[in-house]
């Protein structure tokens, strides 16, 4: 017997856990890709140009993530559609 309140709490927790793990993976991807790209030879501090590169790289990486996500979801839906046509 689940009360509505308990159910909502479970749903909220699951959503938060998902969104936290998504944010963690995104941060990891940005750090690895942008450190690699913007800081080829790490010096004794982040130079102005390295700093600017990191900020732009982060924006670009998020744009890339969104493009990849959009294309991937479109493609999955297309494949599901093809299968259903094939099953007729």
């Amino acid at each position, binding site marked *: 017997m*689940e009360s509505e309140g308990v*159910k909502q709490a*479970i*749903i909220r927790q*699951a*959503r938060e856990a*998902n969104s936290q*793990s*998504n944010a963690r*993976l*995104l941060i990891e*991807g940005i750090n*690895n*890709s942008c450190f690699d*790209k*913007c800081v080829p030879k790490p010096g004794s501090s982040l130079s102005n140009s390295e700093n600017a*590169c990191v*900020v*732009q*790289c*982060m*924006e*670009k*990486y998020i*744009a*890339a*993530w969104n*493009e*990849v*996500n959009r*294309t*991937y*979801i479109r*493609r*999955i839906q297309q*494949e599901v559609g093809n299968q259903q046509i094939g099953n007729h």
Partner: protein
Amino acid sequence: AELRQFFANEEQKTKIQSQTHALTELCWKKCVTSNIKNGALDKNEQSCLANCVDRFMDVNIATMRALAAMGGRQH
């Protein structure tokens, strides 16, 4: 029953997000090869990323079909 449906949906969302992360790392390396000059994707990078995802899916589907056809003969 509603909760079960909710968890099935969340699980699918998680899979899609996790695959998006892997594909972004892979396609970023193939498509964003020049120095960063601004925070937006240019036309070439954008179409390269979309093509990268689509061609990776082509390879993926071809592999699964071929392996299914083999029926795991090789090992």
